[in-house]
């Protein structure tokens, strides 16, 4: 039987630690290993940070939802926000071969998500951005 939980936060960096704690608790209670807990936390932090930083054109409070579904074989994470249309996976990869002085500071977060998760998908639906990522267990 799959298990699932929905976490809600505002577009406020202060809410990230509660989401990380709830994600960790949910996964550990459902027998996920440390590698899965790390990857899930990293993906949520990177994607939600992007939404909070770049997703909104006003100063209002917005809700972001993080939905986790886990069964024996797969963890699926779905992140929804009502910011402007933005596909986080449609950005150039950072050049990680450059020396210190020339290193891009941005773009590493999505590079980590792409490499630590098994699938990453984006859709724009009913005025919302929906990012779905999965990790095989």
């Amino acid at each position, binding site marked *: 039987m799959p298990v699932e939980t929905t976490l809600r936060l505002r577009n406020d*960096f*202060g809410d*990230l*630690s509660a989401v*990380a704690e709830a994600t960790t608790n949910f996964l550990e209670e459902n027998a996920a290993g*440390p*590698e899965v807990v*790390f*990857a899930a*936390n*990293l993906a949520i*932090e*990177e994607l939600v*940070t992007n939404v909070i930083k770049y997703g909104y054109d006003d100063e209002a409070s917005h809700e972001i939802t993080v939905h986790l579904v886990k069964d024996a074989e797969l963890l699926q994470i779905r992140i929804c926000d009502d910011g402007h249309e933005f596909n986080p996976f449609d950005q150039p990869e950072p050049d*990680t*071969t*450059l*020396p*210190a*002085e020339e*290193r891009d*500071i941005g773009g*590493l*977060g999505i*590079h*980590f998500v792409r*490499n*630590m998760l098994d699938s990453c998908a984006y859709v724009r639906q009913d005025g919302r951005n929906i990012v779905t990522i999965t990790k095989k267990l």
Partner: protein
Amino acid sequence: MAAFQTSIDGTIHILSVSGRLDPSGGKDLKDTMAVLADGEEKGDLLIDLENLDYMASAGFRELFLAGRKIGRKGGRLVVCSLRGEVKRVFELARFDTAYPIFETRQEALDHLKA
């Protein structure tokens, strides 16, 4: 929550980061490195991550920015004792193309003192 412990060995500043480095921990990391990155003081910075459980791009951003400032003053940034998933993200970031990584604190100190 991340915790920071600093010590000095000659001109080498040693910073141990433990726990969980989330975006707010990234800010604390920046403040902790500011003495060497933004101050008058010159020296090398050795960052020991043996007890670090979690770090994502927010931490890398601060390391790259501080490393650049330290480098411009003639100092060196090195990292040691990566393990588990933290080691994996350092590999994905290809951090070693920018700054040296050592297996142990002793190897890092030997390198800086050589």
